[in-house]
C-alpha cells in the first residue's frame, strides 16, 4: 500500500524495497543492499531533492 501511495506521489516504485533478512544471512544482506544502492544510483536523485529548481523544472523530470 505504501508503494501505491509513493507512486501516486510521483516516486518510482523501485525506490521502495522490503526484504526479510535474518541476522545470520550476512551475504543476502549485502547483496540486497548493494543491489538496491545500484538501482537508486541509476534512478538518480529523488525529485523531491531538486530544491533550488522551480517546481516546474522538478516536475518535468
Amino acid at each position, binding site marked *: *500500500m*505504501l508503494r501505491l*501511495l509513493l507512486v501516486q506521489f*510521483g516516486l518510482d516504485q523501485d525506490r521502495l524495497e522490503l526484504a526479510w533478512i535474518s541476522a545470520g544471512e550476512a551475504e543476502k544482506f549485502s547483496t540486497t543492499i548493494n543491489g538496491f544502492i545500484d538501482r537508486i544510483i541509476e534512478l538518480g536523485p529523488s*525529485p523531491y531533492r531538486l530544491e533550488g529548481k*522551480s*517546481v516546474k523544472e*522538478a*516536475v518535468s523530470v
Partner: protein
Amino acid sequence: MSEKIKIAIAQGATCSGCDIAILDLDVDLLKLFEVADLTFAPILTDIKFKDVEAMKDGEITLTLYHGAVRNTENEYVAKLLRKKSKILIAYGACAAFGGIPGLANVTTRENIMNTVYEDTASTVNPEHVRPQTKYVTPEGHKLELPELFEEVKTLDDVVDVDYIIGACPPTREMNVQLLQVILDFVSGKGELPPKGMILACERTLCEECPREKPEKVYVDEIKSVDYTELDPEKCFLEQGILCFGPATRGGCDSKCINVNMPCRGCMGPTAAVMDHGASMLSAFSSIMKISGTETEIPEEEIAEFMKKLRDPLGTLYRFTLPKSLLKRVVKEQK
C-alpha cells in the same frame, strides 16, 4: 457598558461552509453581537480591504480565517488581518491543514490552467487564451487578478497563527464552545487558552465513537462506501471500510459515524503524529488479513488486495496534503 470588541471573518481559498457554520449559531449569534462588532466579513458585510488597511494594528480583537492559501489575494488577506488582529484563528480544516483545496498539490498550476482553459470538453480555445493577472484598459484603468501559487499552503505557512480549529466545517458544538471562550474572555471571567492550542480532543475519534469496538479487527477485503451496504452498528474497520477514526482527533461528536458514514479525517492528526496519511496507512495496513506467513505472502496476492483501495493518496490525505511530509506530488499525472 464596556465597548464592544471588533471581530472579523476572513476568507482564503474557501467553499464558505465555515461562514455558514458560524451563521448556524443562529440565536446564539445574538450573544456574540452583544459583546462584539463584526467588522470585515466579506460574506456578510460590505467592508472593503482599504477600510481594514486604515485600521490600527491590533484594532481587531479576533479574526477567524477560513480557507487555504492558494493565491496572492489569500496571502494578502492573511497578512493584512494578522497585522490588524490581536488573535488570529486558523478556522476550519482548510486554514488549519489545507483541506480539500490542498488536494490541488497533486498537480501543477500549469496543468490546472490547461485543464480549465483548454482541455475540458466544452471549452473551445484554439488561440490558447489565458487570463492576464494585470491589464490596463484603453481608458487607463488598472485591473488586477490574484496570481495562483504553484502550490496550496496553510494559514500558518504564511503568518503566525494563535489557535487552530479543524473540522470541515467546525461543528455547532465546537462553535458554541468557541463562543463561550470569547464571551468569558470579554467579560473577564476567563483567560485565553495557551497559544497554539487546537480546539479538539487529544485522543482519537475511536474514543468517542458510539459503535462497539471488537476485540480484534481483521480486514478480509477492502471495501468502499460507494458500493457497500454499511452496517450501522459495526465498526467500519470491521466492515473493510477505511475509517479515519484511529488516526484522527475526536471532539466532533462522531457526527459522521452517527449518520452511518466513516470518518474522513477532517479534524486532523493528533499531536504525536507528523504525517496524518502515513499514520492512517500504518493503522489500516496493520489490520489486513492476508493469508500465509509473513515471508510467504505472494507479491501478487498483496497487490490484488491493496488495489481495492482506490486512490490511496486522495483517501489518506484528503484534508491534510499540504501538511504532509512530502507536501505535493512531483511528477505530472498522465
